[in-house]
């Protein structure tokens, strides 16, 4: 498997290996592993070779190298990449003109020295928690090929989990970074709503769309996050805040107050998910339970706003080209476009109310923890999840624990925990991620807690 981003950058900076050699190793891993998993929808090896040569040229000239110099990465195929068509997992986009320039955060990754090797599979239009894409195929779970990678950023999580890449980028509207990170056993960061620019990314639900990294180490996650920060007037939701680096200090302050989310988050966590939370809580010294009482209604509000905004966004093409959308997405999108305005307005009022409740919780706690998915990865095609005796459709149910949090925009680092729970050896070998949820703009606390768990080996990206 590929090494961590920090190790790769350090080796290149020391001259122990060239960026070109790292790229060759990465390409070999992709060619060997991807045919079984279907993570990639496009490879950008020519661009990668140019970028790697530029890094090696800087080294040869004795110039200081940027923080991600020579680190290979890839992006969910809803990020604009200059010269490539931005698919967003949809056939309806395949005939669009190629992107004229990179998305803002792709350009920032390039400036930080990272090497772009390709675009990754996702759920069509980011609408769903699976990556069983009707047009571009199923992305399989690197931990068990009979199971899905989760979604919608399934290719991004699976590529890291398989050991092909140390870093990938994805997006998260309702859980699309956190759910696949949980199912594939990798680290993922959904920053505060508005922290990272979405300019040059294919939209889904403006009210909730976030972008962020996946990685095989917490430091890699932090390095990518820091490289992508900064204001961007091209994204109206992007906070005009200065860069607040998190990677410089990944140690958790003494006396940090941690609450374990009960109520909704406990009810919808099966024994494996509960065990993951228990392991993380014990390692962090957390003992106090608390509750976000509006979790259920926040999830419902997110559903309504998602349906309405997603439906309205695609309505013109649903009228013109309904048959070119996949069957899983099209009827849901049309139904969403019929939602009355009064429901949406009420949902946005609920969202504000839930946010205020969370802010009250953050007067008592610095960090909240909950499972990132209700269970381990479901089998490909599995239609329902059985959670503590209650059945829920897989497609919607995988996001039951993430949706309330993205509804109110809180930063979350998802860490891979291995609960060793289940009915079979295969199930007991699977991870369930834990959400480390911070107050707005406190990604540093989330990442520091993640690093603590990584150092305790409670959270780790295991070899596939």
């Amino acid at each position, binding site marked *: 498997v590929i090494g961590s981003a920090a190790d790769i950058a350090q080796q290149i900076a020391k001259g122990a290996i060239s960026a070109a050699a790292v790229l060759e190793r990465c390409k070999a891993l992709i060619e060997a592993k991807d045919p079984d998993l279907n993570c990639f929808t496009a490879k950008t090896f020519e661009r990668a070779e140019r970028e790697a040569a530029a890094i090696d040229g800087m080294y040869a000239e004795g110039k200081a190298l940027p923080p991600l110099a020579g680190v290979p990465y890839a992006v969910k195929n809803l990020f604009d990449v200059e010269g490539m068509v931005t698919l967003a997992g949809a056939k309806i986009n395949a005939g669009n003109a190629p992107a004229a320039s990179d998305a803002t955060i792709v350009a920032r990754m390039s400036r930080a020295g990272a090497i772009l090797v390709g675009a990754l599979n996702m759920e069509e239009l980011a609408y769903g928690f699976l990556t069983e894409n009707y047009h571009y195929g199923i992305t399989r779970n690197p931990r068990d090929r009979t199971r899905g990678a989760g979604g919608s950023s399934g290719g991004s999580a699976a590529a890291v989990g398989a050991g092909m890449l140390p870093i990938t980028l994805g997006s998260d509207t309702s859980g699309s970074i956190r759910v696949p990170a949980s199912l594939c056993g990798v680290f993922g960061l959904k920053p505060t709503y508005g922290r990272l620019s979405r300019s040059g990314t294919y939209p889904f639900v403006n009210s909730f769309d976030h972008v962020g990294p996946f990685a095989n180490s917490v430091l890699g996650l932090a390095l990518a996050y820091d490289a992508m920060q900064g204001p961007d007037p091209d994204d*109206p939701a992007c906070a005009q805040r200065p860069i607040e680096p998190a990677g410089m200090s990944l140690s958790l302050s003494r006396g940090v107050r941690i609450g374990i989310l009960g109520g909704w988050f406990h009810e919808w966590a099966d024994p494996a998910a509960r065990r993951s939370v228990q392991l993380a809580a014990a390692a962090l010294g957390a003992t106090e339970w608390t509750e976000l009482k509006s979790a259920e209604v926040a999830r419902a509000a997110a559903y*309504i706003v998602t*349906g309405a905004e997603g439906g309205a966004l695609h309505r013109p093409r649903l*009228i013109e080209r309904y048959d070119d959308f996949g069957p899983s997405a099209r009827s849901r999108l049309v*139904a969403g476009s*019929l939602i009355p305005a009064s429901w949406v307005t*009420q949902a*946005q009022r609920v969202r504000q109310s839930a946010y205020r409740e969370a802010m009250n919780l953050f007067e008592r706690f610095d960090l909240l923890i909950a499972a990132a998915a209700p269970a381990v990865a479901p089998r490909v095609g599995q239609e329902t999840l059985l959670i503590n005796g209650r059945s829920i459709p897989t497609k919607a149910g995988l996001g039951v624990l993430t949706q309330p949090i993205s509804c109110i925009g809180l930063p979350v680092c998802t860490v891979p925990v291995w609960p060793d729970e289940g009915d079979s050896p295969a199930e007991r070998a699977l991870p369930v991620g834990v959400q480390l949820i911070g107050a707005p703009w406190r990604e540093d606390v989330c990442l520091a807690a993640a690093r603590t768990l990584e150092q305790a080996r409670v959270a780790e990206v295991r070899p596939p």
Partner: protein
Amino acid sequence: MTESRDNPLEPYVRSALALQGYVFDEAEVAEIAAQFSRLEAIARTVLDWPLPFASESAPVFRP
């Protein structure tokens, strides 16, 4: 067809589809009505949630 006829929200869905400029066959209308019913069931939680009269929407627009 049976599912479509049994769905009490189907008249709303038909009217709203026409208002928005969609044209679908009966099977598609039935499927969309079924999806809309799921949304409506979830919306009840939101619509029934007690809020102070003056509570505002989450802000989006920043001039």
